[in-house]
């Protein structure tokens, strides 16, 4: 397929590239999209490979029928023209013909439905999983919680690298990496050749967790849990993107799954557990302002800047933090309340998944940045105190 296409596609694309000025070379991304990919990925799970085969089967069948039917039409257009002196016949009814061309398509769709049914049933069987991971869609990031199996208890958030988001705003000029818009800070790590059950849910609006190379796509619906599964037959990096419109940053919440060998997976789990223990902040620790500001700046860049902007001025419907009464208020609970619970029907989402220290840091940061010079410091204990309310 590819070789047939290379020439005409190349010609067209040379024209396209000349227009767009996208001169820099882009390479295929292994585990992600290929440059000018024409077909479904073969993928690394049985399901995705069978989808690929089934799709080819359907394509061939449809193409054959299409060519057959339209050869008749174009033959007729060629031969039965007035300009070549063809006289119109007078037939306009035939029960036999009508019955035949009702039954034949009916049989063809039944033939299509048989393999589809088999694959669908296999695809929906999420029983006997080796590892169960809950995937939570947030506006606009993914949360991964390892619920059952090796690594149980691990939990982290996965976000698009901020430099890719910035690159997008700048018009993706210059040297753009091959994994543009697909690179995250914390990829989902799973072992190869094991059945991974993915449970999806969401925190705010509907998202969809999709990894084409695994042949999976499952909506993540707030208030409900749904599930799907995959068993990756080889190690590597695999990419996907959110596939259900979830608001303004919909295009910026990619999925990166790292499939590793069983031994590597065990090592990763150990390391991750140690990190988690070390990172655990004591919410009762009393921080100094400079330390808290340094941390708050990072939290702000990773979570808040997408909407409120790095300059704190917001944009369009997004409210500015610079000069905001809630931010400047000496009563810290007002801002903490908004951070924990969200505002305006979730247009400002709830951030309760962040730690007390992170929230205290980001609140302190906003109170002491841009033209906000309150000198106030919000301690983690204050956030903790508000959490239960």
């Amino acid at each position: 397929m590819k070789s047939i296409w290379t020439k005409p596609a190349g010609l067209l694309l040379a024209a396209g590239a000349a227009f767009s000025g996208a001169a820099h070379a882009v390479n295929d991304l292994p585990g992600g999209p290929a440059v000018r990919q024409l077909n479904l990925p073969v993928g690394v799970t049985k399901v995705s490979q069978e989808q690929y085969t089934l799709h080819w089967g359907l394509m061939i069948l449809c193409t054959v029928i299409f060519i057959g039917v339209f050869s008749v039409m174009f033959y007729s257009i060629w031969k039965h023209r007035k300009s070549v002196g063809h006289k119109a016949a007078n037939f306009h009814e035939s029960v036999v013909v009508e019955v035949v061309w009702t039954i034949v398509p009916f049989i063809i769709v039944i033939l299509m439905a048989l393999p589809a049914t088999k694959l669908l049933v296999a695809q929906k069987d999420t029983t006997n999983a080796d590892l169960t991971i809950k995937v939570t869609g947030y506006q606009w990031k993914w949360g991964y919680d390892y619920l059952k199996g090796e690594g149980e208890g691990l939990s982290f958030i996965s976000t698009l690298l901020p430099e890719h988001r910035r690159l997008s705003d700048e018009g993706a000029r210059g040297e753009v990496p091959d994994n543009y818009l697909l690179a995250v800070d914390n990829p989902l790590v799973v072992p190869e050749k094991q059945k991974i059950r993915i449970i999806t849910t969401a925190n705010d609006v509907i998202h969809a967790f999709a990894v084409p190379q695994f042949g999976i796509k499952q909506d993540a619906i707030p208030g409900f849990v749904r599930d799907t599964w995959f068993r990756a037959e080889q190690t590597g990096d695999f990419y996907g993107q959110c596939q259900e419109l979830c608001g303004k940053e919909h295009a910026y919440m990619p999925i990166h799954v790292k499939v590793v060998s069983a031994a590597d997976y065990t090592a990763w789990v150990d390391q991750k557990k140690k990190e988690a223990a070390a990172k655990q902040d004591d919410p009762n620790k009393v921080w100094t302002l400079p330390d808290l500001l340094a941390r708050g700046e990072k939290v702000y860049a990773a979570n808040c800047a997408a909407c409120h902007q790095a300059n704190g001025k917001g944009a369009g419907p997004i409210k500015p933090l610079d000069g905001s009464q809630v931010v400047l208020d000496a009563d810290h609970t007002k801002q903490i309340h908004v951070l924990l619970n969200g505002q305006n029907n979730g247009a400002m989402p709830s951030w309760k998944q962040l730690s007390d220290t992170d929230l205290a840091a980001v609140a302190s940061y906003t109170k002491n940045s841009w033209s906000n010079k309150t000198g106030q410091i919000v301690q983690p204990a204050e956030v903790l105190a508000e959490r239960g309310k």
Partner: protein
Amino acid sequence: MSAVLDPHGHAAPGGHAHDDHHDHHAPTGWRRWVFATNHKDIGTLYLLFSFTMLMIGGLLAMLIRAELFQPGLQLVNPELFNQFTTMHGLIMVFGAIMPAFVGFANWMIPLQIGASDMAFARMNNFSFWLMIPAAIMLVASFFMPGGAPAAGWTLYAPLTLQMGPSMDAGIFAMHILGASSIMGSINIIVTILNMRAPGMTLMKMPMFCWTWLITAYLLIAVMPVLAGAITMTLTDRHLGTHFFNPAGGGDPVMYQHIFWFFGHPEVYIMILPAFGIVSQVVPAFARKKLFGYASMVYATASIAILSFIVWAHHMFTTGMPVTGQLFFMYATMLIAVPTAVKIFNWIATMWQGSMTFETPMLFAVGFIFVFTMGGFTGLILAVAPVDIQLQDTYYVVAHFHYVLVAGSLYAMFAGVYYWMPKWTGVMYNEWRGKVHFWWSLISFNVTFFPMHFLGLAGMPRRYADYPMQFADFNAIASIGGFAFGLAQVYFFLFIVLPCMRGKGEPAPQKPWEAAEGLEWEVPSPAPFHTFENPPRLDATATKVIG
């Protein structure tokens, strides 16, 4: 000229003994249009309105394609981009395609069944003028605080609950457009069932009337369902109900079920009248009767009935039980059968005909050819395990533009070229028509064919920016899109406008040698009043015999 722009009702020979009488009462100037009760005037209003909306929706499409021309954000921010995609969809579906077909119905149904006018002439006026405030509300929502709705044309909860005040304006506009559609449908049903000339039995009716009769029933059945869904969204937003808000125990998936119970019949609402137009044009230019008239009627009815039991194929990725997926997969694949029957019938009509290829026929054949591609991709999407890969990707975008643009819009172009001599009294410029056809056909395919590849490669729809690997096909699609948009401006300025101004050769009463039907029994342009006394028809109900 005539029925379109000039004061009406002059010099119309034959069968119009009462013209003068009516003329004295009919208003002129702006009153003629604001107080219009004449089906031809209202049809004209509908067609001009829908073309205006096509241009506005098209402008949004151009902006979308301009942003997607290259990776990275160049022109708009992602929030505004979402507003563009949302409003492009809403405006095209509710503002362009649906009213355009009502315009065709208004003009042609009374002429085709030998009725003097639509059954409810004043309600007809009301259902047109209702659309104006609705359209203004839709378009003006861009200037409301927070911008236009940005939740996609499907308005999925709970994203709609996060939208600004323009969401309420959008919902209210949908309500009004729905009311207008329902009134229009009642009018069409009553006109067809009660006002046919003696001898015009149902099974002798032109196919366009048949497809509209069935479409009108679909509209009455599903528009209230849409109204229900968006009303529940409205009360969720403002009155503290929790139909779809999971925070209060609501179910976002229920919204999708209700929406698509409307939404799937809706896609047939947008294609059945197109089938009707093509079924009239093909026999006229093949100089041969429509093959399998009765089976065409039954196929249309089957498609309409099946359209009510397939809605959840839009929701395969929401995670329904395997039995649910199987049912909706089988039911959806079944629709391929009556649709195939229609395609076969059209080709059998052409077979052994004596064809000529004036612009209406070109668009009709183009319709059959390109719409069938959209039909096949629909069949592939119906197969649930494959749909899991393709749902919400550009493959779906390609599919529904193949059926809505190359389907509905092409059929409407065929209809405009076919009937414009009757409407305006002058022939369009044939050479320009052919330019319009080939320009549209090529640029359409350049725009939408690469989107199949993008979808198969996994590019999600409604994305303001995309990975670099998708760049080339997006650039091609954008170039094609601009060319397609320009073709439609050309169509209006260089083909429609000259006809409306009466420039061109005067059209004979029946410009097409083998066209059949009562609309060709009245002069061109069609006089302001036609068939004021029920005509006597011949045995085939295609000719007036006194």
